[in-house]
């Protein structure tokens, strides 16, 4: 008596075509504002709206970028940076998620740790540069630590918030099955928290990249942050913008990666706009 019938191939084909067309349309919609922005960037210096010496045309930035790609210079900076970012980000995940669950769940942990964590959270990584240098030296440790420091807060805060917004009935239901606290975290609170937590994770993903500029101000010899400061101090303005753009685009990719991971993990969700 079931009517779960597979849609036949012809319909599938139609759908595919539809996707082809609507996909194109979507791509267009998604890029139109971006393209407008880049056009503006190209035009503004051309018509003298801004001084080209300080704000080069978009094309010149692209050329500088391509030169650096060809010479392999960009890749060297890129890989130095990405390694640091991944380490810092990964450590932040390992630390902040369990800590967030702990604080979100146990009032004692909250009472004990919150004040210190809040104090640290409200301390600018930039201001802490000298302190990091003092305690951790100027090698990789201090750079990764700064990234770790910056990534921790968004994950922590969102994890705590996520725990707080889990439907109490679900927790009740799981507890009625006498599962252990650990399982409760792992099997109920974690999946229920995915959407909120991922907001924090995505924000941390950006931080991991953005903080490079500060982190690589401390005794760096390579890295995208170093490239940017270096270019700026030596008036290689197109190169500087090329560096900034690289960081932005890198952040963009990481963001989309995390987004699609989130989508996979929250496939079960009903679209609220439906």
């Amino acid at each position: 008596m079931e009517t779960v019938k597979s849609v036949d191939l012809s319909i599938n084909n139609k759908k595919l075509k539809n996707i082809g067309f609507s996909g194109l349309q979507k791509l267009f919609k998604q890029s139109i504002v971006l393209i407008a922005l880049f056009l503006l960037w190209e035009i503004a210096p051309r018509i003298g709206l801004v001084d080209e010496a300080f704000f080069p045309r978009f094309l010149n930035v692209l050329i500088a970028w391509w030169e650096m790609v060809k010479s392999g210079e960009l890749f060297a900076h890129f890989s130095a940076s990405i390694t640091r970012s991944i380490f810092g980000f990964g450590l932040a995940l390992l630390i902040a998620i369990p800590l967030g669950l702990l604080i979100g769940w146990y009032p004692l942990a909250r009472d004990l740790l919150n004040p210190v964590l809040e104090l640290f959270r409200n301390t600018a990584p930039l201001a802490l540069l000298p302190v990091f240098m003092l305690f951790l030296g100027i090698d990789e440790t201090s750079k990764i630590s700064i990234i770790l420091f910056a990534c921790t807060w968004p994950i922590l805060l969102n994890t705590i918030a996520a725990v707080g917004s889990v439907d109490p009935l679900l927790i009740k239901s799981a507890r009625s099955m006498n599962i252990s606290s650990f399982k409760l975290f792992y099997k109920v609170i974690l999946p229920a928290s995915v959407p909120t937590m991922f907001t924090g994770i995505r924000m941390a993903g950006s931080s991991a990249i953005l903080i490079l500029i500060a982190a690589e101000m401390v005794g760096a010899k390579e890295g995208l942050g170093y490239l940017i400061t270096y270019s700026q101090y030596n008036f290689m303005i197109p190169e500087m913008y090329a560096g900034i753009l690289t960081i932005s685009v890198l952040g963009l990719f990481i963001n989309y990666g995390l987004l699609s991971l989130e989508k996979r993990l929250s496939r079960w969700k009903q679209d609220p706009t439906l």
Partner: protein
Amino acid sequence: MTTVEKIRFERVTKSFAVRDANKKGVSNEYTAVQDLSFTVREGEFITLVGPSGCGKSTLLDLTGGLTTPTRGRILIDGKEIAGPGLDRGIVFQQYALFPWKTARGNIEFGLEAKGIPKREWKEKANYYLNLVGLSQFADRYPHELSGGMKQRIAIARSLAFNPDVLLMDEPYAALDAQTRESLQSELLRIWKQTKKTIIFITHSIDEAIYLGERVVVLTGGPGQVKEIVDVPLKSRDADVRSHPDFVKIRQKVWNLLHEPEYIGANI
């Protein structure tokens, strides 16, 4: 029928703090159930009826170990309840399915909690999915199921969990007559086979009498035991409902629920 005592409610009182509507920041105490005492025998099927808001769900939470009584105590096998346990399983009034798990996943969650080895999950889940008539819907997420289907999954989960004591809060409220009847007899069959102790909340007097060996009638505001009605029916065929004994008991429970103290209590 054994007469070993399974659960004992001893002058159980549960109060909640509620904000005062008029005075800001002040909270009052609202008593949901008060000085409630009765015992449930081992292997007994007991049904609970009472007006809306009289504290039935609260009582189930207490028995499940999810909240603690404000005063009094609840004993299971002579020991005071310290928290949830594998010996008790609950079907909640509002299903409480995990939205990120499919129908099958929700049932397997219970199996895992119970510590059933993984290789047995599939077979067990299939068995209970089939029992509640939802084999075809095993891979749907809760939001893709109808209200009655969700409720049936919650029932399947608790049956698969296979606890000693089964606590069910209006489990059949969202089911159509036929599905309801069929699940009623399934539940009776399982009960007879496994000799579980079952506390079953319902608003249907018929259901309460058909299923229960005893019907506990509660009064409202705050919840207290009004009377415990024995149901001395030998058979439980479908047509037992027209049996004169059945009709007599139904009338009795109906009368209990319509006595003056209710009038104006909630309506």
